[in-house]
């Protein structure tokens, strides 16, 4: 208990963000029609590609002689970019089909 309370105070900003974002995430897509389930899943998939930022930081911090960090970091950047770019492009292609009907 003595450890947890200070821990919460110390990280309260983060905890606030987590709690608020859970509600925002649920609220924002609450009324989605079933037609859009798949494009929405795909769009959300692209958004969690923000993990790429972590990969860039890892890569950018790796010391020159630390080959393991460089190789793993590089791999992480490639995979993260695949997630972001591929995710947004696939979503756009799915949604392109919806536009035509007008």
């Amino acid at each position, binding site marked *: 208990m003595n450890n947890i309370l200070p821990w919460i105070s110390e990280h309260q900003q983060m905890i606030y963000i987590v709690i608020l974002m859970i509600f925002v995430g*649920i609220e924002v897509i609450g009324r989605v029609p*079933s037609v859009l*389930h*798949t494009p929405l899943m795909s769009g959300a998939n692209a*958004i969690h590609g923000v993990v*790429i930022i*972590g990969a860039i930081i890892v890569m950018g911090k790796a010391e020159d002689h630390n080959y393991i960090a460089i190789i793993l*970091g590089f791999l992480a950047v490639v*995979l993260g970019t695949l997630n972001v770019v591929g995710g*947004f492009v696939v979503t756009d292609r799915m949604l392109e089909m919806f536009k035509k009907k007008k």
Partner: protein
Amino acid sequence: MEVHILTLCYLIASVTFILGLKMLSNPATARRGNLVAAAGMTIAILGTIFLYKDDDGNRLHNYAWIFGGLIIGAVIGTLAAKKVKMTAMPEMVSLFNGMGGACAALISVVEFNHLAHGLSADATMEEAAGFFATVDKTMLLIILLGLIIGSISFAGSMVAWGKLNGKVKDFSFKGQHMLNNILFLVIIGLSGYILIASPQQTVLFFYIIVVLSLLYGVFFVMPIGGADMPVVISLLNSFTGVAAACGGFLYDNKVMLTGGILVGAAGTLLTILMCKAMNRSLMNVLIGSFGGGGAAAGAAQQSAGGGTYKEITLSDAAMVMSYANKVMIVPGYGLAVAQAQHVCHELEKVLEAKGVEVKYAIHPVAGRMPGHMNVLLAEADVSYEKLLEMEQANEEFKSTDVVLILGANDVVNPAAKSDPASPIYGMPILEVEEAKTVIVNKRSMKPGYAGIENQLFFQPKTSMLFGDAKKALQDLLAEIKNV
């Protein structure tokens, strides 16, 4: 100054993610929503590359590696996403999701190595234990969380991808769920042990956790039926969101935290909504009723399914449809595979020219992903008003003369209403047997994706028109023009 600009970049990106998701859930704004989120992502990435400084004020280096990775990923990602066929899009999403999960797991591995860096290679056991006791436990907890969730998401997505493109078959064995639960408990137990007791073999245990998490991801998805993959992908999608958020905690990075948690929450709700569209609970999907329990039911059905079916000739089918007042078309995966949507639209126009009313009955989960059929038919310029949702369609079947089923199976299987032993029992279906005549176009009598027989095909009012949907429709079209 630069740090403040970076903060602003992250703030803008976070807002675009929320706005993007909001716009994505409305058909009119969906496409713009996707672009808005993509723009925000670009700002966040560029900001990080050029403006990021760590706590000591050091800039990032290794720019060649960073840009190399970005370019390789962007080129492959764009090409893959552009070239993928409409029918293969869900598996593409799964693949990209797996990449994100792997990325999060790799970040954790690198950060753990960084953490363990202070430990010299020839340290004694006692020194090692002492070293890990001093490590920041919050950091270690977040690293472990990101590692476990990311690995599960990666391995699970790869299996889901393999299942959707047919490379991996449904597979389950007795005691599978037991094994899964044990695996899960061992992962949690080992992590807790590392955190609390700081054992000397921390490094070894860390890599054991990696392997176990990957295994758990595989076993988690393996027993779930191929038809449920969209739900599983959506769930794994929210997992990756949480893994990304762990990165946000690790680097005190608000945009990663916002984006990750946002997707985690929205993805979880979306998963539940998808299950609701199939009238199943998430538990029911995850336990994998297409695996264990389904086998017995399947065997029972096979003996019951030995009835006789009748075929219809093209000219008869053409005749019946030309003289009908109302024809309802039920599209399914077969239509998508054969890419027959344009011929289908053509058929609709020819029939309407003959004074036949033509409509489409769309089941929410027809095809391999929700909304699959709407997208496909919209591509062929089929008017939006002609697409009936399930409830509407079910009301209109009573006044329908001919139902033409194009490669749909499970969504019209009456067992979902009548047979409690059936794995799809309880799923709302299109009640096509209310119509006067049913014509089913299929390639063969093989069961649908859920792997179960369909009694509809053996009913007296049903007749079969075998063949590839595109070929059959083209021939049918020619016959109808001759009538």
